[in-house]
């Protein structure tokens, strides 16, 4: 019989470890691993890693409301090119994802495009204004599992407690953009010697740490699952570590850019290095790398934040927040953190899928599993020069990275393939 798709010569990550073999796919599923197959379509991996499709807990697709920056089609194309088969889309759209119908709109658009699965995160408060709880039940029933006011912390401690208590029963996770508003007010970069020299207002690492400290106390109080978004400081890692040791249901993510760079990069005053939380010291960056390698930080999340050229052709302080990341994430992690195959797919697929409760993704390669896969040549060097995203605000632009996504399989279909 002929399979729909055969991937040849992969180093395939199975539940029993990596195996150099072929695999066969039909009807959205992996049907066989190892053996001699014929495929209607075939892809030769030339010895590259084959593992579960990457899962991003943190991206901004700007639809609905800001489609000049990105939309669900261009964002899905960027995800596929970056090896991602599932992406949690942040709720800071216009309008915000605070009600069931907006979450359903995003899911429906994602299915129409059909290049990856997009699961909306839901806002914790209406319009992300921090005042009134959003329609938590509607959102849950629309498939939302991650709740966050990303971009802003929920600063009202009593309100956050109510949200956490309410969602504990559902099993949802609260994800926090940890940034104390008054400590961070007016800041554009890490507070340190460079911000002092530049005369730019800084954001101390403590702006993140005070919010995480408070939230971990609420996690103890409510028992709700809690996830720290884009950890930037070494002391935040220590806080998370201590809470995990105490048995609290806490997880954390780190972005590729916080692993790659430190605040010295802001000296260029290129808005491609402007993000919140800001790039911190080299010591922080080294601690983040070590914590990802050890698993203290559970997952890599891109915080893919597209902005148009006209918005970034301005001085650093006037530029909007955030940088794109879906297409460079795998390469950046491999270049700066040197993870082995098991750890790589754990931090970029298996664990984020578990945190986000994304059932059909993040599963090691075995017969019967959904065919959501990524093929990555871990040592292949390439220079970042063009993007499928509508935006180009990448800190990795024109850098040479090691580790290249050669193919992405979404629900049994080859949605991205580089031919040699």
């Amino acid at each position: 019989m002929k399979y729909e798709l055969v991937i040849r010569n992969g180093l395939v990550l199975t539940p029993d470890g990596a195996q150099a073999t072929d695999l066969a796919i039909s009807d959205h599923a992996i049907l066989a691993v190892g053996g001699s197959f014929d495929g209607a379509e075939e892809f030769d991996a030339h010895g590259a890693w084959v593992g579960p499709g990457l899962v991003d807990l943190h991206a901004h697709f700007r639809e609905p409301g800001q489609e000049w920056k990105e939309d669900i089609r261009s964002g899905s194309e960027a995800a596929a090119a970056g090896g991602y088969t599932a992406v949690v889309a942040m709720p800071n759209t216009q309008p915000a994802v605070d009600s069931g119908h907006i979450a359903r709109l995003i899911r429906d658009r994602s299915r129409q495009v059909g290049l990856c699965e997009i699961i909306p995160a839901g806002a914790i408060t209406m319009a992300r204004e921090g005042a009134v709880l959003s329609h938590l039940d509607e959102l849950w029933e629309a498939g939302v599992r991650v709740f966050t006011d990303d971009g802003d912390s929920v600063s009202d401690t009593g309100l956050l407690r109510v949200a956490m208590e309410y969602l504990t029963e559902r099993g949802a996770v609260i994800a926090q953009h940890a940034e104390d508003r008054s400590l961070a007010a007016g800041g554009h970069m890490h507070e340190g010697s460079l911000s002092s020299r530049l005369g730019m207002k800084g954001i101390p690492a403590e702006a993140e740490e005070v919010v995480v400290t408070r939230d971990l106390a609420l996690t103890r109080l409510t028992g709700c699952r809690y996830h720290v978004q884009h950890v930037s400081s070494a002391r935040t890692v220590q806080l998370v570590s201590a809470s995990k040791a105490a048995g609290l249901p806490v997880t954390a993510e780190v972005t590729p850019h916080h692993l790659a760079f430190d605040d010295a990069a802001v000296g260029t005053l290129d808005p491609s290095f402007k993000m919140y939380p800001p790039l911190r010291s080299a010591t922080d960056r080294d601690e983040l790398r070590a914590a990802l390698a050890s698993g203290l930080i559970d997952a890599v999340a891109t915080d893919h934040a597209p902005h148009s050229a006209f918005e970034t052709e301005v001085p650093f302080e006037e530029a909007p927040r955030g940088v794109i990341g879906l297409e460079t994430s795998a390469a950046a992690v491999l270049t700066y953190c040197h993870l082995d195959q098991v750890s790589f797919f754990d931090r970029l697929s298996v664990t984020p899928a578990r945190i986000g409760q994304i059932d059909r993704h993040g599963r090691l390669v075995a017969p019967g599993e959904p065919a959501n896969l990524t093929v990555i040549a871990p040592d292949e060097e390439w220079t970042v020069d063009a993007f499928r995203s509508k935006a180009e605000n990448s800190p990795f632009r024109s850098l040479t990275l090691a580790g290249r996504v050669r193919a992405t399989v979404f629900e049994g279909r080859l949605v991205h393939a580089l031919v040699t």
Partner: protein
Amino acid sequence: MDQPAMKHLLSIADLDRGELEDLLHLAGEFAEVLERPIPKVPTLRGKTVATVFFEASTRTRLSFERAAKALSADVMTFAPGTSSVIKGESLKDTALTIRATGADLLVVRHEAVGAAARVASWLDCPVINGGDGAHQHPTQALLDSLTIRQRFGKLDGLRIGIVGDVRNSRVARSDIDAFTLLGANVTLIAPPTLLPRDLEGFPVSISHSLDEVIADLDIVYLLRIQMERGSGPGLPSLPEYVSRYGIDRGRLERMSPDAVVMHPGPINRGVEIAAYVADDPRALILDQVRNGVAVRMAVLFRLLGAS
């Protein structure tokens, strides 16, 4: 000089001591030109200087325009309130448009750090930083250095105290770079909330008490206290600030007899500087303004005169 000719003037930190002294020497010569009956030379005839000020200015814009005209250059004036910036034009497109209109050099003042440097990266002509946020104001540092040299002959070994809101001051950052490059010893005098958060990279001493150090200073350089912010973040109240860091008759009397008071303007008479002090011969405030024209002639000449 061994180095390639200066392309822009964006930060004092981009200059070495030789380049800085060359500009001061040239400015001294232009100061003499300005004393002539017809204070004008034909050096930059046919050149066009655009002043592109996104922020309010009296001294800097006027003295750049006077400097350009004294060199026989033409001047274009850009003001954001009457331009397409209010229609949403980006800084890049605004800069490209001004260049395409025929400007040979742009003087850029902007409230954001690095704005002039961004403009310089987009254009194929010289750019002068006329002040970018709290970062740099290099021509202010040049005119301050020239004023000090005229009074003391040199800066080497002088003890200069910079008093006030250093944290939010581009004048302070530029002056620290220039004064220390020229061999002066700089002390920053302010409460902790008005000093840079991290002093690594600032070759200065620190004092929190003007009274403790005032008798040892050759120059007391007062920064403007930003009245428009009220007491603002970082100060309990204006009267408390004035009582600890303002210059009144009593503090003037405790200064060394040869010591002088400087201020970048605009001054708040009666706040950081008593009216009596502002009008005292030991206050060099109007010398500073006068020298602003000469140093800007020197910079324009260095950037446009060679071609």
